[in-house]
């Protein structure tokens, strides 16, 4: 039996402590996706008895709701390939324009909805029909973009407008954001403006265009995953380097098994790169500063080991100390 390390118990304690700290870090900082919105955007339009009676937006709706259109935004997904944030836009009319439902609304008076999307959309909602929902595809800004993955962040603005089909006048509108989180993303919506006194924290866009801004960045869990995967690559490189150094000094013989191990590691690194959350395309900053250098150095280490294996006399020599 070979001599054990004297400091095993101390090192074991260190390992347990490190693992505990790591799990605590994961538990505290790791968060999946989250969607947040400001106080003006997170609650829907309310129609409490008498709430709108003195409002200019109220006519004589029996439900006590104002003549208005509520735009309800529900985050859907991030199309990273096309650099677009996709939200669902549901039109919920109230008052003389109709009433809201779960997935749409029912129209009592014709109105059109214009949406400032990548594929600019105009939708006509006719009386007696459910309102038509639209996919809002917002281009994510090109500044600080995917190249800086996972520290990329994006912002943008979504603009909508509802117009009375008969009078061609703008319909007062308001915007609400639904509680739908996107896996791996932190999305924040905000509106600028002052809410009307009777609207209970809702900003009313009387003049036509309703606007809402958004900011998008990756969730903490993505940072942790990336740090871990990068750490994995670096450990692989350091291990390969240390082993090759030991062989080059003549402390260990060059061996075919080692070449196989280096080849496995090389394949594993390519797998690790393919498992970056969100599948970012090749050519991002991390590729230039971590992935490509690690792959190149591992390849060089493989070449060096092949060279040692070919030129040295102790190739595949075995350690034959008797037990």
């Amino acid at each position, binding site marked *: 039996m070979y001599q*054990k390390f004297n400091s095993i118990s101390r090192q074991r304690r260190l390992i347990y402590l490190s693992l505990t700290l790591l799990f605590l870090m*994961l538990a505290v900082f790791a968060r*999946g996706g989250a969607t947040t919105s400001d106080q003006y955007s997170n609650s829907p339009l309310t129609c409490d008895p008498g709430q709108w009676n003195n409002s200019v937006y109220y006519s004589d709706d029996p439900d006590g709701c104002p003549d208005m259109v509520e735009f309800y935004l529900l985050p859907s997904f991030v199309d990273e390939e096309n650099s677009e944030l996709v939200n669902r836009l549901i039109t919920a009319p109230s008052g003389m324009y109709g009433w809201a439902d*779960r997935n*749409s609304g029912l129209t009592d008076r014709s109105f059109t909805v214009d949406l400032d999307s990548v594929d600019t959309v105009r939708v006509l909602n006719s009386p007696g029909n459910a309102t038509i929902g639209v996919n809002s595809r917002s281009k994510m800004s090109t500044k600080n973009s995917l190249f800086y993955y996972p520290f990329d962040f994006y912002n943008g603005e979504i603009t909508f407008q509802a117009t009375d089909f008969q009078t061609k006048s703008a319909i007062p509108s308001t915007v609400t954001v639904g509680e739908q*989180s996107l896996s791996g993303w932190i999305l924040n919506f905000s509106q600028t403006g002052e809410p009307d006194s009777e609207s209970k924290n809702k900003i009313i866009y009387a003049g036509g265009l309703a606007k809402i801004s958004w900011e998008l960045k990756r969730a903490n869990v993505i940072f942790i995953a990336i740090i871990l995967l990068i750490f994995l690559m670096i450990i692989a490189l350091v291990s390969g380097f240390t*082993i090759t150094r030991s062989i080059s000094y003549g402390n260990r013989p060059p061996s075919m*098994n080692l070449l196989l191990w280096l080849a496995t590691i090389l394949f594993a690194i390519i797998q690790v790169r393919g498992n970056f959350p969100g599948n970012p395309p090749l050519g991002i900053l991390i590729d230039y500063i971590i992935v490509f250098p690690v792959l190149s150095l591992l390849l060089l280490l493989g070449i060096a080991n092949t060279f040692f294996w070919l030129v040295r006399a102790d190739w595949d020599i075995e350690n*034959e100390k008797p037990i």
Partner: protein
Amino acid sequence: MIINSKLLFKWKISIALGLLFFIITPIIISALIRPTTDPLLSTKSLNSDYKFEISISKINIKDNSATITITPRLEGNYGEPTKNGSLTFKDVELLVDSYQGSGKFSAQVGQVIGRQEFKVLLQGNSWRYPFDNYVTGIGLLDSKFENQPLSLKEVKEYLPGFRANSTTIPNYREDLYPSNSNKDEQIISDLNKGIAQIEWRVMRLPGDIYAAILLAILMLISAGASLSATRAVWSGKRPPSINALAWLAAFLFAMFQIRASLPGTPPSGTLFDLVIFYPILIVLLAEIAAVVYLWIKRDDWDLKNVPKV
């Protein structure tokens, strides 16, 4: 080492029973846990000629949407059922609270009308995979109401990886119904007026949950096996070797393949990753680093097990 034959027999029996339990459990669970249907959409559905079949036919998690299909099954004065739909004897118009499309199910007298699909919103996310669940729903309104109750029957379609439990919900506020009326009476009152609201709670199939748990156990067992091998090397019972390193690297490689094989291919960064996948990667990494260190430092590197003469 001689193993007592009685003990061996007990072990064999235990392993056989364990394997049997392991194989039978998912079959039993899948047989017992079935998607449920609201009684008002199955056994207690209203007796009316104005019938429709409704089903949830697709779940798209990435897109946060679901597809609901409505098939007319008109009878009597309203029409005649065909193989895939109905021949209508009256104008039919059902307003459907769908997210996209016309939002209307309509047909004119003498028209053969088949099933139609409507896209609805799906709320929820995959953070708690494989125990993630979602909610979706739809509202129906008969705009040509002719005092004939709306009869709805839910047909369960196969949803790959998911099961959906339906519930009917009252359309109006509590105070708009007669006092002391229970939920069923409120919904029947809605159906008698040609209105319906249905909600589905969508969950993963027990088989998929079982498969995800099984893969998680496989990952944990792999980590456990590699941990005990590294421990033996660390404590000097076994020599550090390049073969051990290759084995650890192959395990690392396998972990990514197992992660990619999870049913439903959940996105990266779920709770499953945080609790199982990432910690196992960390453990394997630490083990690779430890074995490399020992291979360089110790004299028994790549030592063969030569029997004493």
